[in-house]
């Protein structure tokens, strides 16, 4: 309870869902064999922590940022480029992460103070511009960043696939297993930090700012600083997650670390999971990443099954999975605007009141 800052998911359905995802992530290396399930589980960890930090901005503070994934990328590039330049090692990764965190904080401070004084829409535009500039910069500086191709780099010996620790419960424990648990532990710790922040006096002011910024000012809160601090803290978390993901991928490039499509994914995850719930990010990430990886196959199977019918096989082509995800998204927004966790918690709250 202390670990959860006194704010567990409300009601058993939401609680069960979160626990289920957490247990599944913890047990993935033991339950499944082969590379794919672990890849999927790692992506869920990363997207859950990244989306949770975005939820602090979007759901708790009411700020729309398009630069959140940029901070993720800064952390990833920090770890990747340092390991590439200095050679594999814990020191290089730590140094790269520290550099990424520092740059993220500085950028967040600058963007926040520059644009959060004005209307929220101005902040959104500025983040879009800065993120775009960063994307271009990463591609246009091939000597430094590897350009479009990015950089593959090596990780410390202990984390390599070839490093065998032995067997446990019939599963080979390798450097990849260790890397996965590092990512999982890091993501979980960051999530708990975010949970503490939204339940702190500072986090409560963020919600007040979302509800009624002018009233928050009339109480004496200088909301520019609160908003800026929220952007900085969430940028630091995003950068940290980026570093973890780079360590897992052993690669950093624009597509995996800076792409706007990741920004859209994060937004979708927060909305389907439930804005302003934090736990929604975990559930949303699990649903989204699993759909992304297995919806293709499912749709492909449906296409084969309907091969004799007109039009349908075309719509059900595996490459159309994004279309179907879009349809699911629209249905979710229409019928469960609070998202999965938000909706479950609302039902619980109403049940208790009546």
């Amino acid at each position, binding site marked *: 309870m202390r670990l959860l800052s006194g704010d567990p998911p409300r009601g058993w359905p939401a609680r069960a869902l979160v626990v289920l995802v957490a247990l599944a992530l913890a047990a993935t290396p033991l339950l499944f064999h082969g590379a794919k399930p672990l890849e999927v589980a790692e992506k869920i960890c990363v997207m859950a922590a990244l989306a949770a930090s975005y939820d602090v901005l979007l759901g708790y503070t009411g700020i729309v940022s398009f630069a959140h994934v940029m901070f993720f990328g800064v952390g990833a590039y920090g770890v990747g480029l340092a390991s590439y330049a200095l050679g594999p090692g814990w020191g290089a990764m730590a140094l790269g992460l520290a550099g990424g965190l520092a740059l993220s904080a500085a950028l967040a401070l600058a963007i926040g103070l520059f644009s959060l004084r004005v209307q929220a829409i101005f902040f959104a535009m500025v983040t879009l511009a800065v993120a775009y500039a960063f994307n271009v910069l990463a591609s246009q500086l091939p000597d430094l960043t590897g350009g479009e191709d990015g950089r593959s780099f090596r990780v410390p010996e202990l984390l390599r696939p070839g490093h065998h620790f032995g067997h446990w419960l019939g599963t080979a424990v390798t450097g990849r297993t260790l890397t996965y648990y590092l990512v999982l532990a890091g993501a979980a710790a960051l999530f708990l930090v975010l949970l503490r*922040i939204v339940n*702190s*006096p*500072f986090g409560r*002011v963020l*919600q*007040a700012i979302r509800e009624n910024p002018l009233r928050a000012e009339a109480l*004496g*809160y200088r909301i520019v600083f609160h908003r800026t601090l929220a952007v900085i803290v969430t940028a630091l978390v995003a950068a940290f997650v980026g570093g973890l993901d780079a360590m897992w991928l052993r690669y950093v490039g624009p597509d995996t670390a800076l792409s706007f499509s990741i920004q859209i994914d994060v937004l979708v995850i927060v909305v389907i999971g439930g804005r302003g719930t934090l736990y929604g990010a975990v559930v949303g990430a699990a649903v989204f990443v699993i759909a992304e990886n297995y919806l293709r196959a499912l749709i492909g199977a449906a296409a084969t099954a309907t091969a004799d019918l007109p039009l349908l096989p075309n719509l059900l082509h595996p490459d159309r999975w994004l279309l179907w995800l879009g349809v699911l998204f629209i249905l979710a927004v229409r019928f469960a605007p609070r998202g999965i966790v938000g909706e479950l918690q609302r039902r619980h709250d109403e049940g208790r009141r009546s």
Partner: protein
Amino acid sequence: MTPALETRELTIRFGGHVAVDAVSCAFFPGQLTAIVGPNGAGKTTYFNLMSGQLRASSGAVLVRGRDITGLDAPRRARLGLGRAFQLTNLFPALSVLENVRLACQARAGVHYEMTRPWMARRDILAAAHATLARVGLEGRAGSAVSALSHGDQRKLEVAMMMALEPDILMFDEPTAGMSVDEVPVVLDLIAQLKRDASKTILLVEHKMDVVRSLADRIIVLHNGKLMADGPPAEVIASPLVREAYLGAAA
């Protein structure tokens, strides 16, 4: 004696319309000043200029002799300018308790603390419950703001100002739209605050019996201009006020 609050030639224009027109006035501790005038006279705008929601086109606002014209609303609030709004101005999705607790938290100067959960600040929580009890809302602590009656929302509005323990309290039509049996709760509260000689109270109110019983002084605004200023009996009796305001209202 330095006034607690003073305006000098305070003016604001919206386009061509001068909503507050060169108002100079000083307010003193231990004094309750009623501000009267017809709708659209500029009373709320005058308050907004003093508490910082609006910036003056010209003129100055002083608190305890210090020029605060350049300060924003949060800094003015921290200097002890409290404001209860005419149009209910709350945090709608948060609970009644949380609305007041946020005010108590601001009063305690806890702005950026993020390492401890909010429950750990029991002092703030206790202050919030105590403030709710003062306005008779202790039974509604867990309710959503949207579930409150209009009158209870007005009380919460007042509670949030009181939680800040300001030296200068500005009430903007605190009893407007309240049912007859709810009005005394708020008036008793104002009367109680008035007994504290360190408080400077400004009250915009239309009900003349309320003004007569509470006010030490009345000022009259009309078309943004200060038309009259004096003891209640004198101002209410003046022909100018009868014509400009009371005549229309009665």
